[in-house]
């Protein structure tokens, strides 16, 4: 294919491979790119979810009432999957409590509520003059401490991704600035103005994962950004590649296919084939973390939508509420029909505006009836096959839909349900307006719940078998005891062997425990409790307990 392209005189920097399927959707990006990046004024209240990717919570190391400074560490990433959290501005931690976060269900998650004092005092940051002096392990450590996660939307902790990748050996690092989804222009705005920093960030990432090559990928219709990058890449080993416009070429699996022609094996990470993909915004955050010593406390967010008077790209602080940002842009509430975090095809429709921007919120769309006409009713599937033409994973959405309706999970799995990236291309083209992605999500949830229950059943079965074994063993040894029942063993989390050794120890004690004494003591205790109960009005004891 590359050869054919060269022979036909095509630009050699254009990606040589095509992805499967795909759709062409209107971009709606120009309006938010008319102006430059704008910093956002510091809001009064910042709400910082302990899990910036709505996965595993970080562990808060501050308490309510603490005064914090900008860039101060607020929560540590103890468990795999969590990301460190830093204060975006100085102020007072007013509380650590549940608040609504930006997901489809309006779930409540634990958040640090920060009252800003307006002074924005930072702690001392340690910029690194020459990142090349650091070795990759030091780079990894700094990236982890800076709380960097994938800013393209998924929010996977970057340090973990890098170290996982290094284990398999990385041949190619791809910096994904494709941004194929409609409405989002954050990466383009970033590259247009700060392309040099993005390139340095890319080089840092390349050193951090010991990749042999690095390519930055853009869509070919982004002239400004391509210009800026070409200038920035003049003295760099990093290559630039442009892709034809389309959705979803920017998806991780699709961009790997477009750039390398290889496919990521099902249920495996790209690192297994020697490729890592990072978003351009993440590269910029890495640059800030290493070169300026500033942890990740802000990101570029596109504010767009017809009801907004001034749509643009803002450099928002993490924790700013969506309603604050909309007010900043001037929103026409009469036309405002809903809000989306993310793009129009894979974003999350919010139930309320009082949710905070997180590290993964790349775009906020104010919906209006003009751009987002109300949903048409779902009709029957006419098996037209448009969805299969559009699917970038080459699945058969019409079959998956039929199996999801029938709750036929075996067939769903056999047809590759978990290879679905939920890009929404199938539902976009469906002439019967079937909400296909929702069907697949519910089927996936059912299958996951089923698998969890199966594991649980197996666990319980093992427990029961151990229980039976223990009983049998006691019965075998019963003649050797003085009298009475054996008492149950002290249960702990250790495997069965340790249980049994403890059990032996208990038996000697139990040996002197006679049945009559037991009965007597029980009767006394019961009487005590009854008296206690009679003497009280029904008092809830549960809140006074602490679970062991």
């Amino acid at each position, binding site marked *: 294919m590359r050869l054919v392209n060269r022979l036909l005189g095509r630009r050699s920097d254009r990606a040589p491979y095509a992805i499967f399927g795909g*759709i062409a*959707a209107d971009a709606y990006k120009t309006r938010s790119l008319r102006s430059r990046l704008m910093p956002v004024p510091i809001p009064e209240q910042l709400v910082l979810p302990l899990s910036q990717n709505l996965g595993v919570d970080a562990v808060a190391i501050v308490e309510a009432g603490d005064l914090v400074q900008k860039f101060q560490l607020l929560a540590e990433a103890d468990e795999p999957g969590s990301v460190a959290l830093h204060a975006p501005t100085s102020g007072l931690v007013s509380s650590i409590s549940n*608040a*609504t976060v930006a*997901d*489809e*269900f*309006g779930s409540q998650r634990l958040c640090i509520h920060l009252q800003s004092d307006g002074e924005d005092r930072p702690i001392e940051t340690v910029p690194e003059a020459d990142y090349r002096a650091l070795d990759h392990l030091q780079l990894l450590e700094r990236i982890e401490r800076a709380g960097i996660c994938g800013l393209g939307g998924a929010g996977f902790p970057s340090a973990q991704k890098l170290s996982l990748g290094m284990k398999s050996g990385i041949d190619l690092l791809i910096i994904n600035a494709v941004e194929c989804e*409609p409405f989002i222009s954050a990466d383009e705005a970033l590259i247009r103005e700060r392309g040099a920093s993005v390139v340095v960030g890319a080089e840092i990432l390349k050193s951090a994962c010991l990749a042999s090559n690095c390519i930055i990928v853009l869509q070919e219709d982004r002239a400004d950004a391509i210009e800026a990058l070409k200038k920035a890449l003049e003295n760099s080993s990093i290559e630039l590649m442009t892709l034809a416009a389309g959705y979803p070429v920017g998806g991780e*699996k699709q961009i790997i296919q477009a750039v390398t022609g290889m496919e990521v*094996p*099902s*249920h*495996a990470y790209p690192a297994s084939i020697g490729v890592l993909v990072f978003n351009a915004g993440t590269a910029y955050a890495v640059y800030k973390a290493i070169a300026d010593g500033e942890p990740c406390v802000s990101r570029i967010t596109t504010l767009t939508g017809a009801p907004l008077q001034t749509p643009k790209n803002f450099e928002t602080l993490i924790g700013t509420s969506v309603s604050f940002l909309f007010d900043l842009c001037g929103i026409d509430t009469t036309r405002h029909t809903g809000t989306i975090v993310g793009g*129009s*095809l*894979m*974003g*999350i*429709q919010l*139930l309320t505006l*009082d949710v905070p921007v997180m590290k993964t919120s790349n775009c906020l769309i104010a*919906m209006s009836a003009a*751009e*987002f*006409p109300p*949903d048409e*009713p779902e*009709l*029957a*599937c*006419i*098996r*037209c096959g448009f969805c*299969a033409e559009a699917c*970038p*994973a*080459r*699945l*058969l959405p*019409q*079959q998956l839909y039929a199996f999801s309706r029938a709750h036929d999970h075996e067939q769903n799995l056999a*047809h*590759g349900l*978990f*290879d679905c990236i*939920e890009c929404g*291309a199938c*539902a*976009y*083209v469906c*002439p*019967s*307006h079937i*909400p296909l992605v*929702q069907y697949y*999500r519910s089927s*996936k949830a059912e*299958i*996951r719940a089923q698998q969890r229950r199966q594991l649980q059943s197996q666990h319980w079965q093992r427990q029961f078998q151990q229980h039976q074994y223990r009983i049998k063993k006691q019965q075998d040894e019963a003649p050797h005891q003085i009298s009475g029942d054996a008492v149950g063993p002290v249960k702990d989390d250790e495997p069965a062997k340790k249980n049994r050794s403890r059990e032996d120890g208990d038996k000697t004690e139990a040996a002197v425990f006679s049945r009559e004494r037991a009965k007597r003591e029980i009767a006394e205790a019961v009487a005590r409790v009854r008296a206690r109960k009679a003497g009280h009005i029904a008092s809830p004891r549960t809140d006074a307990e602490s679970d062991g």
Partner: protein
Amino acid sequence: MQTQPSAIGISSPMQHSQRSTGRLMLLVIAACIPGVATATWYFGFGVLINIMLAASMAIILEACALKLRGRDMRQHLSDNSALVTAVLFGIAMPPGASWWLVAMGIFFAIVIAKHIYGGLGQNLFNPAMCGYVLLLLSFPVEMTSWHIPNDALVDGSSFSAFSLAGLRQSLLLSMPVFGSAQMSSPDSIDGLAMATPLIEFKMAGTGALLAAWDAGVSLFSRDSGAAWELVNMGYLCGGLFLIYKRIISWHIPCAIIATVTMMSMLFYAPDSSAVYGTPYLHLFGNATMIGAFFIATDPVSAATTVRGKIYYGIIIGLAIYGIRVWGSYLDSIAFAVLLGNFCAPALDYLCRPRIYGHGKKSRSVPTTEVEP
């Protein structure tokens, strides 16, 4: 501010391409117009009357069926699928057919072949073809008599088909209770008494178009014998329009046409019997074009994967040629399509594309693993 979590989330995508089933079906009907217009020109108003009858009965029947099934009528009628079935059925019916034939056929098509199976999207077989086949098997004589009013056969005067007299006669043919229409003479009828003028072409060595060209006869007059070819050209244009608009994909029509061409070239034997004719004969001398572009591509009953569609087309093409040449029916589109419908579910199951990320084999690898 805290709000209660809701169990009902709104799923992405929030944008839509604004294509709708209703509009697609209307475009399919629009694509039929060239063919229908040509047929009306040559065969009189009977064609249009059949279509109108079928369409009105179809809508009424569909509304009744939806009501009985407890579905929202306006929503489901707006998908225009009953209209498409009716139009294709009306085109397939012979122009002089009585109204009760049309009624019976459309009843079977809409109520039994479509709604009893579960409505739009659930029918295994092409409803229009089911209705047609029912009538063909039950009323073979009526279905193979191509009654055309006298006026339509008048040589030279190109506009007689659109005269009021022609209209009146077509209506009378359709509803014989109101009187009897003047039928064409027995000699002329024989020539046109078959479901398609295949017999005529059996005598002709070359295509009638070329013959007419040589003879200097106007193509638009009834005598040119080019009627069927032009009708087929009309449907071909309509079909290409549908492919251009990406409403149907090219796989099924191409597979059918290619298979019929290959088979007719393979078995070409003009000396033995004219039915072993040229590919041109087989493609344009009867209903192959409408079958390939409009009937076999009915999405609900056709195969749905790309490779499946190609095999589906091949099966139908083989059946078209086989039944036509070696079977006892003159035109075999309906049976061929039904045969293809039989095979479609199996083709859907067997001809799956290789999923992204699965082994570099042609079949996707089933897996029961689950993402964490």
